[in-house]
């Protein structure tokens, strides 16, 4: 029988982790999880066991070196893990190796960790554990000053765990986010499999990432991946762009919310597409988003509005002003409006909330107004990751997504959002102010429509109590998109026509 090339993986059931770990943690081995203080190591260790119990019927042993079992039970309740119940059911066993502050300990002569090893083995036998977590190893080094002895004994314990065949997670401290792997050179004896948790400060914002540094003998995704720690869920890794680009494309068209716009787009928007609507403040983006949603609801669809700039009362009032009754649609369960201040959570958390809202409400179409509000509060890297995660999620779910973005100048120019995400969107609609003989008029143009022909003309549109009315193209004006509209004279128009005339 041919020996398999790679090492088998144990599915952890920690959301997102198994995807970047290409299946899970190396089975029957110990993986070192190193992180600075506050990087969620203990949560990881506890979740490794909790997920095993709740999703895979795999019992676990938690060896705690630092916190007392009581503290751990209390601290993880917020994630929905009832350790006490699992202990009563014989699924979770604690090995309490935490220090007793009341007791005085003196070290005289040579020793080993035979007692600890025996207790761990005993616990594993007691509940038939498949998973072991040990948290965290640095405290042992500070309590027992003989480093060589501690290293040797920990190595012995790890070897014993391998012998038994359990899959283990060992946490260790680090001093710096980007420095040596772990304190006390722990990585030297748990060298085979290393995961690093980071909680770094970038441009005044905290960013949690997980990196699989190495798995001996088996594949994993490289680099750092963002994750969140949220109540009720624990750690959720966001594997974003790993989601393969094999979404099937559809020819099915949906109503954009405005019939003229449908025409400009060659028949409407595609079902699983992302439309970016870009324009200056007040140029009609929210109106377009509102019409997009209302148009869907009118044709029997369910729509979800994620608003990061306006409040619910404002949106409902606006919608009424344009001839739609958002309040009634919500009542009827056809529309859901979610309003959030961007500053209340990290981008990763927002992404998770968006996913949760979609999974729960199951809309056919989704509008986000505006992406720029979210862009303000993240680093460039974080924002790009967010967009990748969002767009792949929307396409996966076969939704139509319309996102608005604000351009920084009134008359034109490109927004930063456009440059970031224009390659990922399928359609781009620009809304521009046009200055004409002392008047400010409005222009709309479709500049990209992947997979379809579309009108190239910049059309004028007006807004009234019935909404948006798209009219005729601007004739005789050049430079609208650059923000410098210039009336072309009749002569010039003729000359241009001549230039492009076919013989």
């Amino acid at each position, binding site marked *: 029988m041919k020996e398999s090339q790679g090492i088998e993986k144990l599915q952890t059931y920690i959301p997102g982790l198994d995807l970047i770990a290409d299946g899970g943690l190396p089975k029957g081995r110990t993986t070192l999880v190193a992180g600075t203080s506050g990087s969620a190591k203990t949560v990881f260790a506890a979740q490794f066991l909790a997920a095993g119990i709740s999703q895979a019927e795999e019992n676990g042993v938690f060896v705690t070196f630092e916190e007392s079992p009581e503290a751990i039970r209390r601290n993880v309740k917020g994630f929905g893990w009832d350790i006490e119940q699992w202990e009563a059911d014989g699924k979770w066993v604690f*090995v*309490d*190796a935490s220090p*007793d502050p009341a*007791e*005085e*300990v*003196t*070290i*005289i*002569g*040579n*020793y*080993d*960790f*035979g*007692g*600890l*090893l*025996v*207790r761990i*083995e*005993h*616990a594993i036998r007691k509940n038939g554990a498949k998973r072991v977590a040990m948290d965290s190893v640095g405290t042992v080094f500070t309590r*027992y000053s003989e480093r060589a002895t501690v290293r040797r004994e920990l190595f012995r314990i790890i070897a014993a765990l391998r012998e038994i065949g359990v899959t283990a997670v060992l946490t260790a401290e680090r001093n710096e986010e980007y420095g040596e792997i772990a304190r006390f050179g722990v990585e030297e004896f748990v060298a085979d499999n290393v995961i690093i948790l980071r909680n770094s400060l970038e441009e005044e914002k905290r960013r949690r990432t997980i990196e699989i540094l190495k798995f001996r003998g088996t594949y994993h995704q490289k680099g750092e991946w963002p994750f969140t720690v949220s109540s009720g869920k624990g750690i959720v890794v966001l594997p974003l762009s790993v989601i393969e680009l094999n979404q099937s494309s559809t020819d099915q068209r949906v109503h954009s919310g405005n019939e003229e716009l449908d025409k400009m787009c060659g028949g409407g928007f595609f079902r699983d597409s992302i439309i970016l609507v870009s324009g200056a403040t007040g140029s009609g983006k929210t109106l377009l988003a509102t019409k997009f949603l209302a148009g869907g609801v009118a044709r029997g669809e369910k729509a979800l509005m994620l608003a990061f700039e306006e409040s619910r009362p404002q949106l409902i009032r606006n919608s009424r002003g344009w001839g739609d009754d958002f309040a009634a649609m919500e009542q009827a369960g056809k529309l859901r409006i979610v309003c959030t201040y961007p500053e209340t959570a990290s981008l990763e958390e927002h992404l998770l909330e968006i996913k949760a809202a979609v999974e729960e409400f199951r809309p056919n179409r989704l509008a986000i107004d505006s992406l720029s509000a979210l862009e303000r509060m993240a680093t460039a890297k974080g924002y790009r990751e967010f967009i990748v995660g969002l767009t792949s999620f929307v396409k996966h779910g076969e939704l139509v997504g319309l996102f608005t973005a604000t351009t920084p100048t009134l008359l034109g120019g490109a927004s930063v959002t456009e440059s970031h995400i224009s390659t990922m969107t399928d359609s781009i609609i620009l809304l521009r102010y046009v200055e004409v003989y002392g008047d400010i008029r409005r222009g709309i143009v479709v500049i990209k429509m992947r997979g379809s022909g579309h009108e190239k003309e910049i059309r004028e549109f007006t807004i009234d109590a019935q909404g948006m009315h798209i009219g005729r193209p601007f004739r005789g004006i050049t430079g609208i998109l650059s923000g410098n509209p210039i009336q072309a004279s009749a002569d010039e128009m003729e000359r241009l026509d001549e230039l492009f005339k076919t013989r």
Partner: protein
Amino acid sequence: MSKKYLLKLYITGRTPRSEQSIANLRIILERELDDEYELEVIDVLEKPQLAEDEKILATPTLIKKLPAPVRRLIGDLSDTEKVLLGLDLKRLE
């Protein structure tokens, strides 16, 4: 009031280190306490649950239960002075 010492020594199997610690201890106790002590030697390999109950990490571990306060000494007990200090059998001069 009886000043009887109650001691428990936890070892991992009958290894040279275990035997060493037992031997070292007996010498000290015979000399200092004559008969006024009770020593229980517990092999954690045979009784893992007792190791769990007492939260034994390292072995050998000697626990002085009585008289109070409770003290733990870890190791082969090869340094007599330290053992005496650790068991409150000798005051620090």
